């Protein structure tokens, strides 16, 4: 079966909200297949359903209709705790506002998914340190988020996303809260991760960010308007 070879296999995904007397179709029958090591930019104007779509891809939300098979597993109608387990194993989130725990050190932030994965302390230490090293922050492990620059914070968040070796890194406007230099560094890091075989889905409205991706998906009114492969046109320098 083709679907099992795909990392993401979605058919007829719909999400409807009841708003008073009428129904809003946030997503209206979306199909999506993503292979391993793809680099996807998910774009679309606000209200296009891209946030809802991202939440469903990230298993934070369940579709009203349709089928979603993630890494060979049907996650369409899983109960909450099972979905939490799937997120822990399969998805690495990178948020616009970083979402680091303010009172925890960089190391402790990166370690967090490993705690919920139930790993022992020495494995956690090893993996969290390796992950911090991968984003070039091994020397900042003991720093609290407020002792780090915006770019460094986002790199800690990326280290946290990587630490459980997820199938997909799902980034939501990862450069939205950064100055252009830090943003460029983060995109360069994403390029490196793609180069190392990671699968990335970046939700953005920034064409410069989208330009790094190898595939562009545009949503409009809850449907896929554009889905095309492309050669990357790096606007930023490698670091």
């Amino acid at each position, binding site marked *: 079966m083709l679907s099992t070879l795909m990392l993401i296999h979605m058919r007829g995904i719909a999400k409807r909200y009841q708003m008073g007397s009428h129904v809003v179709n946030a997503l209206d029958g979306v199909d999506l297949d993503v292979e391993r090591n793809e680099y996807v930019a998910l774009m679309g104007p606000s209200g296009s359903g891209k946030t809802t779509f991202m939440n469903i891809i990230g298993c*934070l939300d369940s579709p009203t209709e349709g089928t979603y098979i993630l890494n060979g597993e049907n996650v369409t109608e899983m109960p909450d*705790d099972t979905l*939490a*387990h799937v*997120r*822990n194993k399969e998805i690495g989130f990178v948020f616009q506002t970083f*979402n680091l*725990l303010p009172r925890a050190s960089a190391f402790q932030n990166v370690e967090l998914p490993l705690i*919920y994965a139930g790993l022992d302390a020495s494995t956690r230490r090893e993996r969290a340190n390796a992950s911090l090293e991968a984003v070039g922050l091994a020397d900042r492990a003991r720093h609290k988020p407020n002792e780090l620059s915006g770019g460094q914070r986002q790199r800690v968040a990326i280290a946290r996303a990587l630490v459980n070796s997820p199938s997909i890194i799902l980034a939501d406007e990862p450069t939205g809260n950064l100055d252009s230099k830090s943003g460029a560094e983060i995109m360069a890091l994403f390029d490196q991760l793609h180069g190392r075989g990671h699968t990335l889905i970046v939700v953005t409205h920034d064409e410069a960010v989208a330009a790094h991706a190898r595939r562009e998906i545009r949503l409009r009114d809850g449907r896929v308007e554009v889905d095309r492969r492309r050669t990357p046109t790096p606007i930023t320098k490698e670091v």
Partner: protein
Amino acid sequence: MRPSFRVVLEGVRIAYTALLANKLRTLLTLLGNIVGIMSVIAVVSLLGGIDLYMRNEVAAEGSNLFSIQRVNFLEAIEDFETFIDKVMYNPDLTRDDADALRESLELAKYVSARAESGGVNVSALGKSVEVTIAGCDAVYPYISDIPLAGGRHLTEIDDRENAQVALLGWDVYAGLIAPRDAEGMTVRIGNRHFRVVGVAAQRGRILGQSRDRFVIVPLGAYRKVFGPQQTVEIRIVADDIRLLEDAMEEATVAMRIRHGLGPRDENDFAVTSSEQLINLWKSISRGVMTALVALVGVSMLVGGIVLMNTMVVSVTERTREVGLRKAVGAPQGAIMWQFLVESATLSVFGGIAGMALGFAIAAIVSAVSVLPYVVNAALVGIAFAVTVAVGLVFGTYPALRAARLDPVEALRSE
């Protein structure tokens, strides 16, 4: 996810940080716990001290001792009117009663008559002290444990001859005669002079009262000073502690016969034992404990509700954090435990503060008053367990609220 040590530790750490981050809020939150635990610790420590004192006192007196008195002062607490009637109408007890009982009682080992007056001035060598004067027959050394520092006890001959001799308590000797030798000295009680024949060894203070401010003189000599109309107390030591009840019954029957009471008449005297004093104390302390449990219960309930409120605020403030934790894979149980551990830890902090304050209060009260206190280890354990329980029970609702947050909503919150 079960609450691994790591999760508990993380919760304790978060609670500790939160505690320091907002000291005033923490203090207000934990006020109920602090006050509740503080009062229970302070009161129980002091009650325990009094309890210990009572036991020691009874042990010193000998628990096979009982008394026949004209009235039982403890009855005043239960029924004041009856007590007043008895004070007015009960006949005096006499030395003859004691002698008759000594002859007739089979279960009694010693029978002693004794009269007592407090606040009497005793003087010697131009100095004067206020003491309790006891008039005793020669049996008293067998009934009360009064070791001697020097000299001798009063004897059968002193008693028979109504000799004007005296045994001084240590404080009386120290206050009037020391550093001189007591040998050959006389003390004046009223307008009579008593030759000192012995000095009792120092017995120290209990409940702040000196047990060395007494003078013992023969009962006959006592009457010459205080008049013959004084009633005596008859102290009886039962032959066998196991037969204490029977000995008391025997003495009661003998006294009823002496007083010519009919089968329907009430006793016109009182038979009391230290057991009764202990029982009275037990019922008082049980009453205090019951009131205390109610008070502490209310205070812990209020404390619990305030704690719940604070935890709800804490959950609301950290909605995004909960969302993030869920996004990276925390199941509901883990979130639930995080907040439960946090609220239990907060609650225990309150309990520890309450314990410290409670023991401090007990120690201070004990230092400035005559009340002793004891530290009760079981109580510390119970206080700890109660505060943990309060934290868990009242933390459940906020923890459930956090655990059930929708991750998408939670991540979107500000």
